[in-house]
């Protein structure tokens, strides 16, 4: 959020009557309770003392081994020793920024980018440059221009941060051709790429694409993953896969930050993944989210005003919609909140005020009937605002340029 007043406005989304399409929440309501009980029972019988104790800073070996399995499911092969477990994906972003960025260093990222990464980058005083995305993800031609401009100033990006698959907030996926070119640039220019991939396994249709990490082999690509969207956000387990020299710094940084990620939740997640049941669970989530995406896209077609645009992501949690240019998504949010519905206004995904007419809409954490109702209300307030704007701009006075006297009217 840019201003504290806008931040305050979002406080209302916590009220129970508000349909919030603003979050990034996974649906945890279908997690099998008997699986939960089994894990807790196992811990009770065999591991109480252990899970109440500190663990290694890098994370438990069991979880690291399971992370290797999860990444292999996306065709990415890593060694457990290269994995550092973090307290959620957010800590992974924080750690890599802390380790690599000095004040004033340049980070290049997607435009729009993950709204939660911006405060992290800013807190380490990075100079954030955003490269426009289209339907195929970050525009690599513009990335090359950005790098060339920086080189002309005698500077270079410290890293490129991107969510190539089902991007947050844009929902777009970087094409294979662009993935290859991005990795080539990283290797040619020796620039690190931070590949943030929380949603890769949540694919509703289409063929999976290779991760940047697998295309590069782990030389110039650092990989960020998380269990938040495929198991639980409440367990707070994410991870980083890094080349060794960076890994050592990351582990030192994590030691300073929190010593280790919760031993209890690592034990729970490690055994749950080791049981193999996660594959079935993720498949169920994919079914639920696909249906919700379809419902949201259908509702937008029915209720959003003429001139609004949006994408239909092939996976992930978010749709990015853009209203006709005269509407501001921040104003629209104020109106929508009065109708008890919330979303994330576009400017939150930029450092420079772009995205004024856009919004991020989440479909994973809200039930289908509420998605329809939420979209209907947003559509209604947008139509009302557009109509009012048209009424105001269609008078003779507003169609003509202002008369000379207007500018120096008596006051």
């Amino acid at each position, binding site marked *: 959020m840019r*201003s*504290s*007043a*806008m*931040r*305050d*406005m*979002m*406080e*209302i989304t916590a*009220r129970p009557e508000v349909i919030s399409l603003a979050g990034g929440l996974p649906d945890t309501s279908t997690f099998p309770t008997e699986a939960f009980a089994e894990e807790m029972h196992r811990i009770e019988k065999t591991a109480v003392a252990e899970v109440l104790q500190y663990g290694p800073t890098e994370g438990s070996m069991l979880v690291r081994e399971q992370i290797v399995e999860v990444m292999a499911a996306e065709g990415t092969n890593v060694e457990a020793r290269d994995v550092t477990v973090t307290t959620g994906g957010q800590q992974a972003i924080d750690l890599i920024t802390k380790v690599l960025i000095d004040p004033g260093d340049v980070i290049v990222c997607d435009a729009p980018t993950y709204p939660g990464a911006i405060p992290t980058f800013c807190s380490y005083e990075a100079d954030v440059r955003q490269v426009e995305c289209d339907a195929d993800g970050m525009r690599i031609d513009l990335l090359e221009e950005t790098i060339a401009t920086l080189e002309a100033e005698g500077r270079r990006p410290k890293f490129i941060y991107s969510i190539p698959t089902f991007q947050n907030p844009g929902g777009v996926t970087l094409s294979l051709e662009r993935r290859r070119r991005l990795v080539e640039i990283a290797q040619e220019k020796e620039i690190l790429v931070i590949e943030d991939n929380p949603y890769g396994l949540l694919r509703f249709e289409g063929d999976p694409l290779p991760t940047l990490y697998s295309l590069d082999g782990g030389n110039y690509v650092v990989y960020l993953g998380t269990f938040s969207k495929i198991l639980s956000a409440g367990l707070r387990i994410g991870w980083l896969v890094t080349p060794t020299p960076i890994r050592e710094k990351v582990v030192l940084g994590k030691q300073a930050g929190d010593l280790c990620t919760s031993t209890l939740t690592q034990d729970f997640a490690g055994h749950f993944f080791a049981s193999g049941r996660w594959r079935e669970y993720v498949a169920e989530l994919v079914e639920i989210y696909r249906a919700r995406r379809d419902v949201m896209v259908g509702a937008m077609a029915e209720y959003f005003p003429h001139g609004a645009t949006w994408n239909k992501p092939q996976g992930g949690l978010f749709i990015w919609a853009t209203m006709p240019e*005269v*509407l*501001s998504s921040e*104003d*629209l949010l*104020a*109106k929508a*909140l009065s109708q008890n519905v919330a979303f994330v206004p576009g400017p939150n995904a930029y450092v420079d005020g772009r995205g004024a007419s856009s919004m991020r809409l989440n479909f994973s954490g809200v039930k289908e009937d509420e998605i329809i109702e939420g979209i209907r209300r947003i559509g209604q307030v947008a139509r009302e*605002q557009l*109509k*009012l*704007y048209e*009424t*105001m*701009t*269609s*008078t*003779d*006075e*507003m169609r003509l*340029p*202002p*008369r000379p*006297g*207007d*500018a*120096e*009217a*008596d*006051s």
Partner: protein
Amino acid sequence: MRVALLQGGRSLERGVSLRSGQRVSEALRDLGHEVVAMDLGPDLVSRLESSRPDVAFIALHGTEGEDGTVQAMLELLGIPYTGPGVAACQRCMDKSLAKYILREHGLPTPDWVTYSEAGIRDFGAASTFGTAVRRVGLPLVAKPASQGSSLGVKVVTELAQIPNALITALSYDDRALLETWVSGRELAVSVLGDEALPVVEAIPTESNAYDFEARYEIGAASFECPADLPEEQRDEVERVALAAYEALGCSGFSRVDVILADDGPQVLEVNAIPGLTETSLLPQAAEAAGMDFDQMVEKILQLATGDE
């Protein structure tokens, strides 16, 4: 005393209200009172009835909490409450009404016009924008009639910007003001009981000293208390602020926002229930008057219960 602390609510200022409530709650406990914290919800009246408080401390801002809604309910329940009464809240919440009352009392306030969404949508009021601009002059400030914070405020420098500015302002209320931009020093006079506390001045930070919107952007200014004013000017500012407070029928406490222009002070608005966080302007002014936060809260309670 048992104090019902009302905080949160459904207004766009819910966040500030929760922070005000948190700080007030600490103070009330320090003072030895029993605190029953309540958010606004379907169970509000039943909770008020069952907890039988001696007094309600209203730490709510914006619609419903600051506009007389909650105050009217408390009167029906016979529970004394902090801050201004129902009618004063309604007058302060409606910036247009407040300015009419100030003007009737001969108090200076920048010229303005008011537009309603219905007037524009249904009755062709948009064809008067040119007249409005000629009357209030440029630049002007477009703002919703009923918001307490900087939300929905835009500065307009040419006629063509009016539709956009009004769309923004009308997103926060169904009526909006176009008000003459008055340049001058930005002052806030907090009133506690019948006394003006030391004047606070908002000084725009150097980087945006010429940015019109800095006036409305929290964090874009630093605050000085007491403001560095010659005695005569300070007296005049305090006189005008107290007169505005009285004209609107405020009691307990409130904050009067004033622009000190070359030709004297002009009242912009009166906040019936200003922020009560540690860094809010009323607590800053109280501190400058030698009152710490706890003492200020105790004084506000005494004013509500009449046990002075």
